């Protein structure tokens, strides 16, 4: 796993630089700020990397299947990605720079994430996915919903959320142990709410 991730990361530094700029270029963030809809899909940018992007797009359905990824790369004639050592075309972990755990925060599936402010042009180094999360969390939204909207595994979303928490762009409310909640008529409220549906 580690070696294949390293290979993927090495491939990110391809000579065109288009891939690298997708992650680092503050202009991307600034673009989102000025009204360009932030898009978690890579095909919104870096058109010269379309073959790779196509794979990324369907990536969430297929990345678990090494054979399928290789086959798709072949269809697109992208010799760059056919290196057997590279493994699947783009692991989701490439999006997190190979990180598998958040630097900070404890993100339960139903932890509610709320943005504290919009992303500004001063927020250098954010990926489009970060910007999308901030947009999504203008109203409190659960980690599970963010994962579903971004079509990314929860593990990846946790890493991205950790980055945002580091920058104080979001705050989170973790679920209380149920024993702590029951005193406030919680069950009654749930029953009433359900019956009113």
């Amino acid at each position, binding site marked *: 796993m580690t070696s294949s991730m390293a290979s993927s990361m090495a491939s990110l530094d391809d000579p065109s630089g288009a891939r690298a700029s997708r992650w680092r270029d503050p202009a991307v963030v600034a673009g989102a700020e000025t009204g360009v809809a932030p898009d978690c899909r890579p095909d919104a940018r870096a058109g010269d990397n379309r073959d790779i992007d196509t794979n990324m797009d369907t990536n969430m359905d297929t990345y678990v299947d090494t054979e399928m990824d290789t086959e798709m790369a072949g269809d697109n004639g992208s010799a760059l990605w056919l290196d057997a050592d590279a493994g699947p075309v783009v692991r989701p972990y490439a999006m997190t720079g190979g990180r598998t755990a958040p630097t900070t925060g404890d993100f339960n599936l139903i932890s509610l994430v709320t943005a504290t402010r919009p992303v500004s042009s001063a927020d250098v180094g954010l990926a489009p996915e970060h910007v999308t999360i901030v947009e999504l969390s203008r109203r409190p939204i659960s980690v599970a919903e963010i994962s579903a909207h971004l079509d990314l595994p929860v593990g990846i979303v946790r890493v991205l959320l950790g980055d945002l928490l580091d920058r104080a762009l979001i705050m989170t409310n973790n679920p209380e142990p149920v024993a702590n909640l029951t005193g406030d008529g919680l069950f*009654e409220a749930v029953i009433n709410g359900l019956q009113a549906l």
Partner: protein
Amino acid sequence: MDYRPYDQTPGTVPTAIKILVAGGFGVGKTTLVGSVSEIRPLRTEETLTEASVGIDDLGGVEAKTTTTVVMDFGRITLTDTLLLYLFGTPGQDRFWFVWDELSTGAIGAIVLADTRRLADCFASVDYFEQRSMPFIVAVNCFDKAQRYRTDEIRAALELDPDIPVLLCDARHRESVKTVLVSLVEHAMRTVGRRRTAVATTRP
């Protein structure tokens, strides 16, 4: 872009709670979630790698080193300050580690059963019994399945007498609402009993 003011008052963030929907593969968990959710069931996934080595039978698919655990979930906004999430738990027994996380903040679980494959829900029943998580058994009445009485199902599952067993149709909203209310009432009784027990054992 025109930004809505960002609300930074912590007090306005709703409380989120969970109800788990467990049961065997294809028993109707996602259907049940979809019947009451205000959003179409969403899908989230966890990635499983080393955990499956030596456990999964991957005969014929040796190249596959990563598996995803998919969870379907829905949301019900009960009040401005109370959100209920329904999580369909992964059907495979080996994904207990996901269940452990799912259990945090869960007020209880619905074990969905199919009388044609009752054994499929044994693992779920065992899990919630061991964790002392309040649960009920809801039998999804498939059209062609032979009807059993709830006491027959209770006996077959060796359930404690206080655990509700009811028949339902996972496709019908009202039926699912009844199941959810039964679970919450059962959870309320269970917590109440535990409180009493704790109070009486204290000097």
